[in-house]
C-alpha cells in the first residue's frame, strides 16, 4: 500500500461503460448523479425545445447527456415498427401512431487514441491505470486545443474558470473499487460498467438478443473494428437502435493525430517551397 492508502500500482484490466439504449427510460438520473458526485455546475434554465432534452450536448458542465429522439414511422422504417409491434404489445399503440422513442445516455468515449490527450500541450490530460482519460484541473491552462481535437465533441471549456472539463469515469470512485456514479444510479441498468472484455461480451450478447427480437436497426457503437476504428476503439460501448448520427454521435470519428505525420510533411513541403521562392527573389533587378 502507498501512503495514500491506495492499492499498489499493478496492471489492471481496461474499464469501460456499456450503455444499452434499448432499456433507457430517459429519467436523467445519470446526469443528476454525475453532477452531484463530481460537483459539476448546474445548467437549469436553458430550454432547447428539442423534446425532453434540455442539456443539449456533452460539455464541461454536462458529463452525461440523455438524448431524446421522437422518431416518426417513415424515418424509423416501417419494417422496424412492424417488428417492434409484433414483439411487444405495449409498442403496438406507438406503432399505430407511427412513432417511437429513442433515448440514449451519452458520455465521454475514453478513446484508445484520444485526440484530446494527444493535443493537450501541458500534459494536463492523461491516461489512468484504468485506461480512462482524465483532465488534471490543477495543470490545465485552458488553451482549448482538446476542445477542437475531440471528434465526439465531448470536452469543452468552463466559462467560470476557463479550464477544460469532462467525464473522468469517476476516477476517484474507481480507485476505491466503486463504479462510476452514473452506472451506480441507473435504475434500469441501461448504464453498465466493468472491464472492457466483460462489457464487450455483455454488449454482443444483448445485441444478438435484440436482433433476435426483430429490431433490424440495432447495432453496437464504439468498437475498434467498426465505427471507432479512427480512434482505435473506445472505453464506452453503446447498443443503438438506429444510425449513430440520429443520436448526435459521429458515424466514423477519427483522431486527427493519426494524420500528424502527413500534416507536418505538408508543412515541410510548404516551407521548402517558400524557401525556394525566397532564394529566387534575390536573383534579378535590385528594385
Amino acid at each position: 500500500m502507498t501512503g495514500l492508502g491506495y492499492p499498489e500500482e499493478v496492471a489492471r484490466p481496461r474499464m469501460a461503460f456499456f450503455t444499452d439504449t434499448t432499456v433507457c427510460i430517459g429519467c436523467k438520473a445519470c446526469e443528476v448523479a454525475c453532477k452531484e458526485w463530481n460537483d459539476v455546475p448546474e445548467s437549469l434554465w436553458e430550454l432547447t425545445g428539442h423534446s425532453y432534452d434540455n442539456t443539449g450536448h456533452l460539455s464541461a458542465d454536462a458529463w452525461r447527456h440523455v438524448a431524446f429522439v421522437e422518431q416518426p414511422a417513415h424515418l424509423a422504417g416501417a419494417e422496424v415498427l412492424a417488428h417492434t409491434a409484433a414483439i411487444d404489445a405495449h409498442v403496438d399503440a406507438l406503432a399505430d401512431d407511427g412513432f417511437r422513442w429513442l433515448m440514449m445516455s451519452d458520455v465521454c468515449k475514453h478513446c484508445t487514441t484520444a485526440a484530446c490527450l494527444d493535443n493537450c500541450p501541458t500534459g494536463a490530460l492523461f491516461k489512468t491505470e484504468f485506461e480512462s482519460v482524465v483532465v488534471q484541473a490543477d495543470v490545465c491552462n485552458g488553451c482549448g486545443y482538446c476542445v477542437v481535437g475531440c471528434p465526439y465533441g465531448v470536452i469543452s471549456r468552463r466559462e467560470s474558470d476557463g479550464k477544460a472539463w469532462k467525464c473522468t469515469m469517476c476516477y476517484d470512485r474507481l480507485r476505491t473499487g466503486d463504479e462510476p456514479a452514473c452506472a451506480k444510479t441507473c435504475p434500469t441498468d441501461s448504464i453498465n460498467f466493468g472491464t472492457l472484455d466483460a462489457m464487450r461480451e455483455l454488449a454482443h450478447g444483448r445485441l444478438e438478443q435484440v436482433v433476435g427480437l426483430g429490431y433490424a436497426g440495432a447495432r453496437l457503437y464504439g468498437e475498434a473494428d467498426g465505427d471507432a476504428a479512427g480512434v482505435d476503439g473506445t472505453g464506452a460501448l453503446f447498443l443503438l437502435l438506429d444510425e449513430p448520427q440520429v443520436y448526435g454521435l459521429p458515424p466514423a470519428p477519427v483522431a486527427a493525430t493519426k494524420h500528424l505525420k502527413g500534416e507536418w510533411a505538408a508543412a515541410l513541403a510548404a516551407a521548402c517551397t517558400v524557401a525556394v521562392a525566397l532564394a529566387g527573389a534575390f536573383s534579378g533587378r535590385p528594385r
Partner: protein
Amino acid sequence: MSEVTEVRAPRGSMVPSAEVRSYHGRPILQAPPWTWEVPVYFFVGGLAGMSAALAEAAERNGVDSLATAARRVAALGALATPPLLIADLGVPSRFLNMLRVVKPTSPLSVGSWILSVFAPAAVGAAGLAELGRAPRLRRLAQRVGAVFGFGMSGYTAVLVANTAIPVWHEARHELPFVFSGSAAASAGAAAMLLAPAEAHGPARRFALAGGLLELGAERVMEQRLGELAEPYHEGDAGGWARLARRFTGAGAALVALGGGRRVLLRRAGAVCLLAGSFCTRWAVYRAGFQGAADPEPLIRTQRARLAPRP
C-alpha cells in the same frame, strides 16, 4: 457472429439516403473556444517568421537596408505574439504550463517551443543590430530566427489542421501552403513599406510569389474539400474569404506592375497584400466555427468513409 456483423453494418450503406438525419440539427462537434487573438496571432506570427527569413536572406545577399527593415518587422512581430497567445488562454497565468512538457503529438506544444526559440532570437538579432553590439551573437540569433521563422509561419496551419473540424482537418495538405504563402506575401509587403525604394526588388518578388502561392493553394484547398468547403462561400467566413481573394489578387497585380520606379504602385500593392494575408487567416479561423456548427457535411463525409464495406 456473422449474422451480428451483418446487422452492425450501418443500415443505408448500400442505398445511401438522400436526407441526412442529425440529432435535432444540433452540432456534433464543440465550437472552437478561441477568440480574435488566435487569427491575429496566425497573421502576426507568419509575418514575423517570414520577415526573419527575409532578413537573413537579404544580409547574405548584401542588401543591408532590406535586412534592417525585415529584422525590425520580425522583432516587433515577435514581441506581439506571446501576449496574443497568452490572452487567449482560459487561465492566462498558467501560460508557462505550456513549457512543462515537450509533446510531439501536440502541434500546440511544438508551436509553443518554436515560439519560445523564435521570439528571443528575432528580438535579440534586431536589438543587437540596433545597438551595433556582439556581431557574432547577432548573426547566430538571426540565423536561428530565420530557421524557426519557417516554423512560425507553418506550424499554425498544422495547428488548425490537427483538429476534428472537417473543414480544417480535410484541408491538412493544403493549409500549410496557404499559410506559408500568406506569410511570405505579408513579409515581402511589410519590407516594401519600410525599406528604401532601391532595395525593393527581392521583397517585391518574394511578396508576389507568396501572394500567388496563397491564392493558388486556397483554390486547390477549396476544390479538394468539395462539399466541406461550404464555409468559404457562405456567411461570415465566406465574406472574409472573398475579401482575402480580392485584396491578395489586387495586391499581387499591383506589385507585379510596380517594378522599377513605380514605388507608389508597389506600395499600394503591399498594403493590399497585407490586408489579404490578414483576411485569409480570418477566413480560415471563421470557417472552423461554421464547419463545427453544421453536422450534415460531417455526417455525409464520415458515412462515405464507412460505405465501401463489401
